[in-house]
């Protein structure tokens, strides 16, 4: 067994690039995240929630932004997923958080995305949810999933 002190330093860090507009590869980062969490023995329910939330966040980058990164940090107690993008930013976050609200154009909706459930879904899946955005610069979503 590892001592308490040595356990404090146990931490995984991964970064995945996401290309805006690349629908063919969309979902790759969240698949990798899911597999890593399964390999380190994360509780199945947490894996399920991270898989859904991370995919939604990744899709938001693909749909709305030019470029973004999915960052995974996992330690003994929790899983953190941070998705930051360089994109148009969100004008009114409160409005964006409303279920059903979407700024996705029809072309995206026709592909089955942009139903306006992305952000509310991420919030529902995570134990802590934080979103910051600057118009014309980009958006960052921070999610924490407790490994309870």
């Amino acid at each position, binding site marked *: 067994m590892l001592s308490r002190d040595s356990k404090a330093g146990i931490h995984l860090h991964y970064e995945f690039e996401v290309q805006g507009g690349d629908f063919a590869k969309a*979902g790759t980062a969240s698949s990798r995240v899911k597999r890593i969490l399964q*390999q380190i*023995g994360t509780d199945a329910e947490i894996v399920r929630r991270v898989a*859904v939330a991370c995919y939604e966040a990744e899709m938001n980058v693909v749909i709305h932004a030019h470029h973004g990164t999915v960052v995974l940090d996992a330690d003994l107690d929790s899983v953190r997923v941070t998705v930051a993008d360089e994109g148009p930013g969100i004008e009114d976050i409160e409005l964006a958080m409303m279920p059903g609200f979407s700024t996705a154009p029809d072309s995206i909706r026709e592909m089955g995305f942009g139903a306006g459930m992305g952000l509310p*879904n991420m919030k529902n899946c995570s134990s802590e949810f934080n979103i910051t955005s600057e118009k014309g610069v980009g958006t960052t979503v921070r999610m924490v999933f407790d490994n309870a």
Partner: protein
Amino acid sequence: MLDEKQTQNYFHSVHLAEDKCKGCVNCIKHCPTEAIRVREGKANITEVRCIDCGECVRICPNQAKIVVADSMARLAEFKHNVAMPAPAIYGQFREGTKPSQVLATLLTIGFDDVVDVAFGADIVAKRIREELEKPGEIRPLISSACPAVVRLIQVRFPNLIEHILPVITPMRLAARIARTEAKRRTGLPDSEVGIWFITPCPGKVSAINESAGFTDVCVTGAIPIAEVYPLIREKMVRDPEEIDRLVSKLHRGSGLGIGWGRSGGENQSIGGSKQIAVDGIHNVIQILEDVERGKLSEIDYIEAQACVGGCVGGVLTVENSFITRRRLRLIAAEAAEEIERVENDPLAKEALDHEAWFAHDAPIEPRPTLKLDDDRAVAIRKMEQMEEILNSLPGLDCGSCGAPNCQALAEDVVRGLATEMDCVFKLRERVCQLAEEMMLLSEKLPPAMRQALKNKEEKNAPGADSEQLGP
């Protein structure tokens, strides 16, 4: 964790014929669960990961992957034998061969009775329709009919177990009906009645023999379609009156039930529009990934089959699956109305009155195999090591190390099942390094010899100089 203890509960029908295996990399590359490793020149199957889909049986160029199933010889062990042919069997014979002919012929090659699995399918379809009409919160439901898909979910998608349809397979229901009927018709105890599934695939052989998951003891064993095929061909009953006489008492399926033997047939039999049919194990994996992402919100039901084309594509069938697929489609269209006969069959009504007949015997348990260690801290450490190792590997995924790709080798190394030097490129690198070290060492001299050499050099100095100056 992949340890010995776990393997003992899993029955497998796919085995290796060691003498035929050349240790090539074909099977390790095609295994959807990365369950095979070449060790000491032979392809070893990691039992906890194997889902008995039969992909390796299909791909092996040396016929070294074999399916161990029951044979017709076992019928001698029982007083009364009942055949349960899988729908895929009806597509194996020449164009125009009627399902009733096949059923009648089964009664002439050693079986005393036949219960058509398509009959079970017709009844199960009705039950699934009811299930889909219930306002359930778990959608999409995933068909339980293909045992390789169910195992795939247990092994690779344990999160999706709750999506598996809570209704048994047509084969299981047919078996319950067959048991009930055999008891009534013969009065024999269960131990003297043999119930035989005529199977298109190794997955069903395993599902029948396995104790975990489905503990149903109704089915005695599984005999490959390929073994029964020549016997039926030889004895095919052709006289219409004889056929009618033989099949009059049998529980036969409709064209819709028979349709279950091909991809899309199950959905057609159930009816409705919020369903999709996915065939081919790699396509099934992709769709399950999408279910995990929560992407399939508009779909209620997924008919998923490991084999391309559905059961007709099983490795224990005889005819080309694209041909059998068409034949089953024609049969389904011709005999769809026979569903009325099925619905009026008293045993079908009796089955539908027994809610318990449709329940899985045991809960379907997760069998996760990805976890690197039970201790999360150790697992995280191993994960880090794995990334380091992976970065040092060439990334060619050549398979020469015996693992299907570099990622799998890195995983095997941290699990203690392989070493980095199993990689031929790493090995060559190391040999080069050693050769260089040897060169350097060969130039080094122990101190005692160094002085002697110095003296020698001094002595020869003028000569050496003149040599350097040249003529």
